[in-house]
């Protein structure tokens, strides 16, 4: 079986706890898609829920609010990984529940 358990933990630890240009608090908020204020809130909500609707204006608004491109890079990565982790955990939990009582 392909096993990404440890590698998944490693990327989450890296992007949330390791060094970065955005603060750890802000990276965690982007990962959780919770507790952000606009315009960053709108950008990360789209990344998590419907990334194809992100526009140049969404990114420009976050730049205009004072975030650097490197900070935006990090926060968008955190938003994407966070949503995929939640999906993956729900999938694995559903599988564990199904395997208990087939």
């Amino acid at each position, binding site marked *: 079986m392909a096993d990404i358990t440890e590698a998944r933990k490693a990327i989450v630890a890296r992007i949330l706890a390791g060094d970065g240009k955005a603060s750890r608090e802000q990276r965690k908020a982007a990962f959780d898609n919770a507790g952000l204020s606009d315009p960053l809130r709108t950008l990360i909500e789209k990344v998590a829920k419907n*990334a194809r609707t992100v526009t140049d204006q969404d990114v420009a608004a976050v730049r205009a609010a004072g975030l650097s491109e490197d900070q935006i890079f990090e926060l968008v990565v955190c938003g994407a990984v966070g949503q995929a982790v939640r999906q993956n955990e729900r999938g694995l939990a559903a599988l564990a529940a*199904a395997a208990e009582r087939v």
Partner: protein
Amino acid sequence: MRLAVLDEGHSFRAKLMFGMIRLFSGQRVVDAVKLVMYRPEFYGNPMKRITHEAMRGPSAWSVGDRELMAAYVSKVNGTEFCIKAHSAVAGRAYQDDARVSATLADLDTAPISEPLRATLGMLGKLARENTVDADDMRALLAAGVSRAQIEDALAVAFSFNVTDRLADAFNFTVPGPKAFAAGAKFLLARGYR
């Protein structure tokens, strides 16, 4: 690419590699490569480890099956770059482009095995609705998909639910078919490391 740093903010070493790729393949480096080569210690290196294990690690699913899952999840997410990139790899792995295009056009009538069809259906629901339930998984187990195969499929989906979001958020340029054909050849020979 929506952030200039992802286009041209790379290290000298990365830029040298982009030049070599262009020289030997005749193709410009695609945005997926530019993304994983930008500050690779933050995202690219840990993510490549996940994608390589999911796509090329030990599994009862073939490489073609897993590339088809990547293309299918990307179809549900609506990410053109990843649909085209992984359709090309799946078609080359299967030596059958028609099977890939038929699956993306209509999962219900696609010429694929029932366990694979059921698994793709579950991955589609997870991508669309962000969740699945125990009944979805019971149906898969009843269709003959093993628990390990479901975990492997969820690993593929994890990788592409991240990658698709970044491709769309950063607005990857979608190149022509020659670039995807060259990419498919490379990814089948070398994987994602």
